[in-house]
């Protein structure tokens, strides 16, 4: 029996997903090395909600997202969306399923084709997936421009004629054009100024409410994650170390890494600054190619014990909506 019953409202489930890269051998005699960018991730995302993935650079966030979108091969595990086994799909069936899943990228500069007019970029998924009649597509493009707060007279401009924030709006219009159920947002505001960031975050929230979208929302900014997400998974070196609903994760973080991560964020909130229980962790994350056995965080963990360097702590439920992978945190019942 699976210990996590699939709820009726679940849109996306990942079971023990692994994505590995084979790296070029460093010398003629060396073995080619294997980099497990995503290592045994199990997650479920509920309909209409936002699942946040947070972690430092190189923790595997983008790799995980690309794997879900089938833009990278999955080495092991299973991914289901709406009950459909995504990894078994090929050709036409895969293309059909893709319309339900769209991507918003970090860099609004390089993710739009500079030679296409804005309207053509937004319309492209409709053409590619043959959605609606040709004339209906023109109406749809106008509607999409309205929805993301762009003016109709901007439809015929090229990407370089827009600001970064406006380009991100074009990217969002393109992503929602095919009426997807799932939108994966990979650092959608990291390249934007704070004033513009607020505009885009509000837009994403409004569209979610209006269209019932489900988001996988990737960011390294904990303030943004706290603001946007219903459930949050904390990743480190390819593994989920903690996962919980928003209030549990931020009010009662259990994993030493989550605690350190939260306490490292400089804050304008006077309540946070007055509290002064800074947990400093030293050093950088370990080399992902030569991972030591045991807990991934052991080399930087302030609470490390001998067993941590030997056994990998499994991700276990400590209550219904809270999972933690640490030897010091007790599993429920």
């Amino acid at each position: 029996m699976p210990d996590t019953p699939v709820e009726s409202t679940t849109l996306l489930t990942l079971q023990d997903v692994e994505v590995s890269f084979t790296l070029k051998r460093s010398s003629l005699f060396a073995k080619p090395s294997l980099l497990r960018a995503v290592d045994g991730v199990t997650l479920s995302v509920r309909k209409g909600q936002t699942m946040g993935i947070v972690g430092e650079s190189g923790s595997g966030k983008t790799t995980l997202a690309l794997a879900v979108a089938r833009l990278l091969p999955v080495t092991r595990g299973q991914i289901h969306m709406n009950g459909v086994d995504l990894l078994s799909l090929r050709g036409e069936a895969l293309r059909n399923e893709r319309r339900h899943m769209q991507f918003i990228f970090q860099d609004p500069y390089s993710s739009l084709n500079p030679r296409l007019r804005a309207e053509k970029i937004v319309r492209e998924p409709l053409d590619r997936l043959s959605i609606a009649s040709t004339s209906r597509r023109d109406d749809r493009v106008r509607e999409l421009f309205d929805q993301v707060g762009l003016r109709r007279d901007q439809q015929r401009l090229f990407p370089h004629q827009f600001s970064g924030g406006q380009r991100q709006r074009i990217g969002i219009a393109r992503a929602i054009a095919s009426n997807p159920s799932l939108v994966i947002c990979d650092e959608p505001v990291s390249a934007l100024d704070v004033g513009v960031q607020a505009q885009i975050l509000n837009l994403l929230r409004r569209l979610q409410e209006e269209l019932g979208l489900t988001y996988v929302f990737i960011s390294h900014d904990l303030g943004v994650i706290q603001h946007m997400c219903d459930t949050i998974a904390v990743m480190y070196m390819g593994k989920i170390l903690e996962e919980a609903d928003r209030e549990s994760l931020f009010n009662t973080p259990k994993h030493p890494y989550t605690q350190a991560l939260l306490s490292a964020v400089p804050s304008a909130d006077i309540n946070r600054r007055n509290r002064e229980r800074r947990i400093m962790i030293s050093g950088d994350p370990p080399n992902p190619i030569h991972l030591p056995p045991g807990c991934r965080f052991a080399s930087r963990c302030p609470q490390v014990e001998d067993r941590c360097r030997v056994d990998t702590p499994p991700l276990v439920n400590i209550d219904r909506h809270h999972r933690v992978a640490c030897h010091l945190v007790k599993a429920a019942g």
Partner: protein
Amino acid sequence: MTALLSVKNLTVEFTTRDGIAPVIDDLSFDLAPGETLSLVGESGCGKSMTALAIMGLIPSPPGRVASGSISLAGENLLQAGDTRMRAVRGNDISMVFQEPMTSLNPVFTVGEQISETLRRHQGLTRRQAKALSIEMLDAVQIPLPTRRINDYPHQLSGGMRQRVMIAMALACRPKVLIADEPTTALDVTVQAQIFDLMRAVGKETEAAIILITHDMGSVAEMAERVVVMYAGRKIEEGCVDDILARPRHPYTRGLIACVPHLLETVSAERPYLQEIPGMVPPLSDFGFMGCLFAPRCDRVETRCWQEKPKVTQITPSQSAACWNLQEAKVRVDA
């Protein structure tokens, strides 16, 4: 307070395709010895140009200092010649840039680069410089410094490279350290290490620090005073706690309110963020005779379009340039 560094009515002009525009427009501020001051604002507001002006490194052409003065301990740096400025940059003022990779030379080891700085500015012998370099890498918490001095920049992580930059910047015990977005490219746990390091060495060497950032959280954690810049102008200045609790300029208020600050405790409630509509104007619009924030401001009046806002001294330490200042928020808790 007697200022260590004093910028007075500084105007720096750039020649662009659309004519001449002030990247820095009548900017004045003081820096006291040992203090940490933050320059904050969205990108393109002139923060980096201010730093480069102080270093005497404004790219020319297209830029030139049109008027004003920058004095360090009484000496007007704008009058100093090239030789003198090189000495100032080595010994009195140093700078850490956002991307350490571009400011380290890829073909020399980090040890060679620190030693070179020390030998050039402090006249040390090769052996003395090497010994001191190791000591400095150790001081900025680079593990195994005797080995690491033989590494090339690409062999270090981003955080380590930034630590090397800080070691180099502090090698000659400058009076002023300018850090231009020193942690923007780094992870938060590493940012926390760099900030701790800056605080510690700042205290140890008694250097005054100018921290350039767009993040109010970093301002709150690192600085005592803050200068808020918008489109080349200073629009508000004050002690960090005052500015955070009672921002009086609409832009400052927007800058604080539009960010989802990480909260100590969260509840189920999640209001929409306050937006600052629009964006920073292009350089060609800088120098406009009215208020440059008018197109984005919710308190704009007719006068704002016509006259450059006058500076109001709100308290001895807080001032703002606005025709229609935000009321100081009155606390209503009992």
